[in-house]
């Protein structure tokens, strides 16, 4: 179906702009996915997980190894990545969650920063990149392409977007209508009182880490494919884009987080064909985060939290 509409947006023809919109939405889908995972964890435990990208990257590396150096079935490799994400996050949450429980959200985030550093170090040390080879992880769904509105889309991109949407719906319903979901919201409100009410706080928190971790593993797989190369350093820092999505959602609303993720992906992609700003498009997630943060802190707030000693 050819497009009869021919106009230009700020000097770039619509025909040229279309494919970037598709690309932006696909990447935005993964940012939205990770964003929702981050927000749910934050709501339940107060921890903003900076190691989200690093865990996903490590899982993707393990999947790569399994596919290329063993003869095990590929579906096992992909599930391993998702399971690895869940396992590492769960382990961290169980081992260190209680120790951090009474601390400032800042300190909790710094803990995940430490985890990210450890993982980065491990990946750089044991799986360095080489001059003549690069790791590529392609999901089988990428081999199927379709033409949508004159742009080429592959199945992975569609799945990323669909998955983000489904996850948002499911999680929203889960938080509102299940007992576990209510427990999350109760803990987010006041952990002490919730525990005195007989809610197994540590177990609930552990489930939040596990759920968020599984999303982290899935996001790692999708990003490694969409990004078209397994660069663990870049994948680790892609957490910033997911953070931007989470911040746009004010670390509260899942739907706004999903919208935020799509916005971040779109903005970054759409800026590509504009030569005056194209070199700065990598700054888009940073700038959007800053705007979101300034909006979050717009009311004059005097800090009552105890000193971080």
């Amino acid at each position, binding site marked *: 179906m050819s497009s009869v509409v021919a106009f230009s947006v700020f000097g770039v023809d619509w025909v040229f702009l279309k494919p970037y919109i598709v690309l932006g939405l696909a990447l935005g889908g993964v940012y939205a996915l990770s964003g929702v995972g981050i927000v749910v964890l934050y709501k339940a435990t107060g921890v903003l997980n900076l190691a989200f990208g690093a865990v996903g990257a490590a899982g993707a590396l393990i999947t790569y190894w399994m596919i290329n150096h063993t003869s095990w079935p590929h579906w096992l490799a992909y599930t391993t990545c998702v399971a690895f994400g869940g396992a590492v996050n769960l382990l961290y949450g169980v081992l260190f969650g209680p120790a951090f429980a009474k601390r400032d959200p800042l300190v909790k985030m*710094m803990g995940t920063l430490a985890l990210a550093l*450890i993982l980065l170090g491990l990946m750089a040390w044991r799986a360095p990149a080489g001059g003549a080879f690069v790791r590529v992880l392609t999901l089988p769904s990428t081999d199927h392409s379709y033409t949508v509105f004159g742009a080429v889309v592959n199945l992975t991109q569609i799945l990323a977007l669909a998955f983000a949407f489904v996850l948002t719906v499911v999680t929203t319903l889960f938080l509102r209508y299940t007992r576990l979901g209510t427990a999350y919201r109760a803990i987010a409100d006041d952990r002490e009182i919730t525990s005195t009410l007989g809610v197994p706080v540590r177990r609930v928190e552990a489930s939040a880490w596990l759920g968020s971790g599984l999303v982290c593993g899935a996001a790692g797989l999708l990003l490694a494919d969409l990004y078209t190369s397994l660069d663990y350093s870049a994948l680790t820092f892609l957490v910033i884009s997911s953070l931007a999505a989470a911040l746009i959602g004010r670390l509260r609303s899942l739907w706004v987080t999903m919208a935020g993720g799509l916005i971040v992906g779109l903005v970054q992609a759409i800026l590509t064909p504009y030569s005056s700003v194209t070199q700065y498009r990598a700054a888009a997630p940073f700038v959007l985060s800053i705007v979101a943060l300034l909006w979050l802190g717009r009311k004059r707030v005097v800090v009552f939290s105890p000193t971080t000693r």
Partner: protein
Amino acid sequence: MATAHAGEKQEGARRRLSVERPDLIRGLVIAALLAIALLVLPATLGSDWIKTLTSVAIYSVVAAGLVVLYGRVGMISLGQIALLAIGTWTATRLSFATDLPFPVLILVTGAITCVIGVLIGLPALRLSGLYLALITLMAAGAVNVVLTTINFPNGGGGFTGRTDAPNLSGLKPVARPDVAGSDVAYYRYTVVVCALMFLLALVHFAAKPGRAWAVIRQSEPAALAGGVNITLYKLWAFALASFMTGVAGCLLAADVGAPTVYGFPNQDSLTMIATALIGGIYTLWGAVVAGIFMQLVPFIFQAEWHFNPNFLLIIFGVGLLQVLLTAPGGLADQLPKDLAKLGRLIARPFRKRSAESKESA
């Protein structure tokens, strides 16, 4: 009457002296360490060690800025490396565009970085804790993208000072001061300037700003109630930390000569805060330890032991966890305590014996 007054006078004098004694000891220790750094080390270590120690001094000033911001006022910043890059960029641009003598260049770079730091700090004032950390991280990322695009000046004209066809033989690197051209001389110059920066911070701690920061850190409502101008003092902290980082940036520019954006990777912002916390965020000693961890330890790992420096990231991560959970004061806090404990452990059998002998006596 007269003797009573004289007694009081003596009492006052003795009190003054006894209050000053720990400060005196500390002052002597610092003087001794400076003497070692300036005189003994250059004579005994090779030029590569001296160059590494120059970097240690520079990065410990950056860490000192973090001590001011986070240790004293409670404001965390994950973007100090970006400020360092801005300082280096400014110094490089000015060095190509003007003929300022080096001390003036240091001051001007510090001042410009100070202004930029305050401008960034202004909107961030309303934020604290988690949000402040995030906004500084994002600002650092944005600065990194901009610097990667406009690159560092290389003798061209215009704002960015970048030309596609640099005159390679005529390319003069950022000029060192005439008095400190050689590596060893420049090392001494750097140590002196860094010591002055530490002194500047100490002066602030001892005076009104230090007291205001302490109150703000303890409880903002109390500070408000006490009539402390929170906005002014928070901005002052940003200004001081940015000035110090700018000075460090200028020193770095002249140390390296031809700086590039690769000297300031995003990852360094994370390792900087990790090493600052591991070293000890509450005292300036911790800043020195942080500088050592960030520059000297990787050098030893890689150049002396031929070990992959990426392994250090793991150690930094584990160290950071330990600091956050069990030893918030970092090494600077923990080490004297551990040494004292060790000392008591060693002295215990002797004390027991003397107690027994006293009893039996």
